[in-house]
């Protein structure tokens, strides 16, 4: 049971030293601990300001944690040797949300997909051509697209090109940062099925990030729900979706599933600002089960049964309603 990636008590805060006004310090990530097993998918669910993007930038080594460590296959990322560093770079790829800005408009599709191989410099021209053709075929792109420019493709096809680029080196871990949020509903399914098929075939590990819990549930084996820079609930997908324990997870799920509006609350509040952080639990302001304890003491993530962790004082006492069922066996949708 080897973890491809592991984060231990990672914090991240930005301090902008005020020239005239006082220095302000924004704690974007607070005590994040996460791990992803080989061949599985970790779902990261959260809205704007939850810190999910910063976490991915950290795993992609674009940001340094303020404290806490990041491990790649058990080894601390800071002490990696040169070769392992190289291996890390080839083994961790990313697919971004916006299909229109993740492809260089002035490069041909063939060059874009081949770029990871070209950068390593270990492959000759023939080898690259062959691998590009095979990966394009695997993601459902016609061969004659190689010479075309990205501007000639629809959102869905562009995302396939980005996926082909990410998979061409058969990486161990692919981070999917909201890959389908910008796509139309009909195209969204095609990309999700493609990602699932790829994982089943070459055991690629995914970190799937989205604000939409249903799409995350489709691919993920374990889910971490993030709110305001902390993990509020973590567990297997079944635990999170079917017997959820944190009020924010309930709010996320209920916001997404269809029911008449009468049950929704008009006053479910807003995400606090990083510059005047509320005391105690960040969600207290919006939580209908909030008690005084919630408003003063910040709840820590504690295990409430075989890996299902929650950061909420009265996790056991409140009963939360789940509206989602998981029937992976039943593929057909009956109207």
């Amino acid at each position: 049971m080897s973890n491809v990636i592991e984060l231990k008590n990672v914090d991240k805060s930005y301090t902008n030293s005020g020239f005239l006004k006082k220095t302000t310090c924004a704690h974007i990530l607070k005590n994040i601990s996460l791990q992803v097993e080989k061949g599985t998918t970790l779902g990261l669910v959260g809205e704007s300001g939850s810190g999910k993007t910063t976490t991915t930038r950290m795993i992609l080594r674009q940001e340094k944690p303020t404290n806490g460590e990041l491990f790649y296959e058990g080894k601390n990322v800071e002490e990696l040797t040169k070769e392992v560093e190289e291996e890390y770079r080839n083994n961790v790829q990313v697919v971004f949300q916006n299909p229109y800005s993740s492809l260089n408009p002035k490069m041909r599709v063939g060059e874009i997909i081949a770029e990871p191989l070209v950068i390593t410099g270990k492959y000759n021209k023939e080898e690259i051509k062959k691998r590009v053709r095979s990966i394009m075929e695997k993601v459902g792109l016609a061969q004659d697209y190689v010479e075309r420019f990205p501007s000639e493709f629809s959102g869905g096809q562009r995302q396939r090109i980005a996926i082909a680029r990410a998979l061409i080196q058969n990486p161990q871990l692919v981070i999917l940062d909201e890959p389908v949020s910008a796509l139309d509903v009909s195209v969204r399914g095609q990309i999700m099925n493609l990602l699932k098929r790829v994982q089943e075939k070459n055991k690629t590990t995914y970190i799937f990030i989205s604000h939409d819990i249903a799409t995350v549930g489709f691919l993920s084996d374990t889910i971490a729900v993030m709110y305001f820079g902390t993990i509020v609930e973590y567990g297997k997908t079944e635990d999170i979706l079917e017997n959820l324990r944190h009020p924010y997870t309930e709010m996320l799920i209920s916001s997404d599933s269809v029911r008449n509006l009468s049950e929704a609350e008009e006053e479910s509040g807003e995400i606090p600002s990083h510059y005047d952080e509320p005391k105690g639990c960040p969600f207290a302001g919006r939580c209908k089960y909030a008690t005084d304890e919630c408003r003063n003491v910040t709840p820590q993530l504690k295990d409430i049964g075989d890996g299902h962790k929650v950061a909420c004082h009265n996790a056991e006492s409140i009963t939360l309603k789940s509206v989602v069922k998981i029937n992976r066996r039943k593929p057909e949708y009956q109207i």
Partner: protein
Amino acid sequence: MRYLAKKIIEALITIFIVTIIVFLAIHSSGDPINSLLPDSATEAQRQELTEKLGLDRPLVEQYGRFVKDALSGDLGTSYTSKRPVLEMIAEKLPYTFELALVAIIIAFIVTIIFGSLAAIWKNTILDRIILAIAAFFKASPIFFIAILAVQLLGVKLRVLPVAGAGTPLHLVMPAGLLGLAIASDMTTLLRSNMIAVLESDFIKFGRLRGLPEYKVILKHALRNSFSSVLALSSFIFASLISGSIVVETIFAWPGVGILSYNSVISRDFPVVQGIVLILSILTILLSFTMDALLAMLDPRIRKSV
């Protein structure tokens, strides 16, 4: 407020760099002495002048002295007229200032009117005419237009005085021409900015709220597009200063420009050095005021830095 403080510091650093450029440019020929004295000067005269001007001491020390003097207002004395440089410049500066100010006002008025007209009636004949005129003004050297204007208005029609200062009439041609020259750049800039602004969502929402067209254009579209023109104004003010030197020479406008022209001919290098210093500082101050104006217009900038 922080934004302005940051801008002040930036302006100071820029002025500091300008003093270095000025100093190096003057000393670029290694030995300014022979450019100051006629070739026939004897070795003794040459020696004496070198000591007096302290040109034999190491460059850095000369620069030190130059800055110290400049700060204390002593820009050296003019060779030809033996008067302190600062005094000569101070005498002439108000004229140049007046010329530049009127030119800017004219430029702003022309730009706002024609820039918006061209943007509103995009791709129509009116738009093409305005663009053609602007392109013509941009393409033709300012002094040629000045010569034409002098012939036409001054000599043939005798409508406007051709040289010197005094009555406001004297100001019309030089400031007008200078204003038009700057306006040509700014008009095309404002037009493209405004076209983009007119296609933005808040203009669409403004119109769909039923706001009258004149309010949508004058209040919302113009203010947004004008603030982006201000942001690029530093290019424009450089052309303002160089333009004013040319215009002053043609119209014999008793400003700093014509002084610099004459002192180049008479090889009076402290005066030139002083004028260049003051003019570039003037340019920096001008673009600084534009930044300040921009900060007033656009709240996002005020708070951001």
